[in-house]
């Protein structure tokens, strides 16, 4: 659970005074806090750890790193909470 997972910023907005956005990881999109990467904008790739972008990364490297993480089974944390029966709301979604 210690590695960051690279994804692409699809959207940036303010949420309760916090810089937030949607980030796409292969087929999965999640809400991510962008407060720690003030320089990152829509279309940029960021390394995300437990819902927080911690650094920017270039797109080519992001793709490669994602593949390795997938092989290591380390991308599963992106959907780990989907098993919560009491969730009751969409906590992640697949992008067509």
């Amino acid at each position, binding site marked *: *659970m*210690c*590695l*960051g997972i690279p994804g692409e910023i699809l959207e940036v907005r303010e949420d*309760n*005074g*916090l810089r937030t956005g949607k980030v796409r990881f292969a087929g999965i999109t*999640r*809400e991510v*806090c962008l*407060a*720690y990467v*003030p320089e990152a904008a829509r279309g940029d790739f960021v*390394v995300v*750890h*437990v*819902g*927080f972008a*911690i*650094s920017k*990364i*270039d797109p080519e*490297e992001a793709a*490669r*790193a994602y593949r*390795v993480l997938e*092989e*290591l*089974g*380390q991308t599963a*944390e*992106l959907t*780990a*909470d989907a*098993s*919560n029966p*009491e*969730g009751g709301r969409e*906590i*992640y979604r697949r992008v067509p």
Partner: protein
Amino acid sequence: MKYIDEYRNSEIAAALVRRISETVTRPWVLMEVCGGQTHSIVRYGIDRMLPQQVELVHGPGCPVCVTSLEMIDRAHAIAQRPDVIFTSFGDMLRVPGSRGDLLTLKGRGADVRVVYSPMDALRIAQENPARKVVFFGIGFETTAPANAMALYQARRLGVKNFSMLASHVLVPPSIAAILQAPGNRVQAFLGPGHVCAVMGWREYESLCEHYRVPIVITGFEPLDILEGILMAVRQLEQGRAEVENQYVRAVSRDGNRAARDLIFEVFEVGDRKWRGVGSIPKSGYRISYEYREYDAEKIFEVDAIDTHEPPQCISGLILRGLKKPCDCPAFARQCTPQTPLGATMVSAEGACAAYYQYGRHLDTDGRAAEDCAASGGR
């Protein structure tokens, strides 16, 4: 060399292995600190590509594995309360405490929920004002900025029913503890790339100087690890002991300033007990006095806890690089990922789980015995 062929960058990998072989003249023991690196090393068989003289031992860098039994038992005590919604990262649910794991507790009706981010736990608190929502805040420096932000936001938004059971651990004091321990064999470290992306590497410079030990900040991809090993072996052979940065593309000397600032607003450095290792001075973050009303340990007063660890588990020795998983008599027998006795068998980043997942116990070619030469020396 079957593992190299399987890997898509086999030529570069083979060239790096050749360079390592050309550089090394005597035996060296290197430790990779980060559990993500351990997983990658075992998955790609990197330890088996290396020349005999270079031995990798696996470090304590899996936050799930080193969370103390006392802390897990405290989590249980809190999660059992009917007024509590207990939230945690998925891996933590299966870690055995003295009386079973959190998943079992959930099966018995406790409201235990897996969250992806501490911000999700905060949201659950906002949605359930009549319940007390507790987040199990574990992790190394990589996770601390996220947990700090959850508390910062809780206070800013006036969310009163949210709290954190904080059990953060820090890498540099654990490196110092490993180096100071009697019988230490580690001569150089591959430093944790993602931890340093947040913290930078200034703290590691004083470790290098004080203990005369090379530290190479390294990524987690196979080629990163091979390059990190080459850089570390070069330093050892040349008698240097410096911080070098293999992971330039993600890590700078200062790390992420904004993240660090918020960590120090919310947390303070304190002593921390590590599972299997014991207490290490100044090796963790605890919730600062300013934020004490969000500290689950204070709110729920769960202190005097009587812990029980299975006697056969040697994970403490594994986490310090003194033993390897197949040295453990319970490995792959009583202890498997389905029936873990110790925390290093639970998380994929734990050395025992990585060895099991990639079939190190099934080897018939004698390699398993060789992998476990840590205690006897090669």
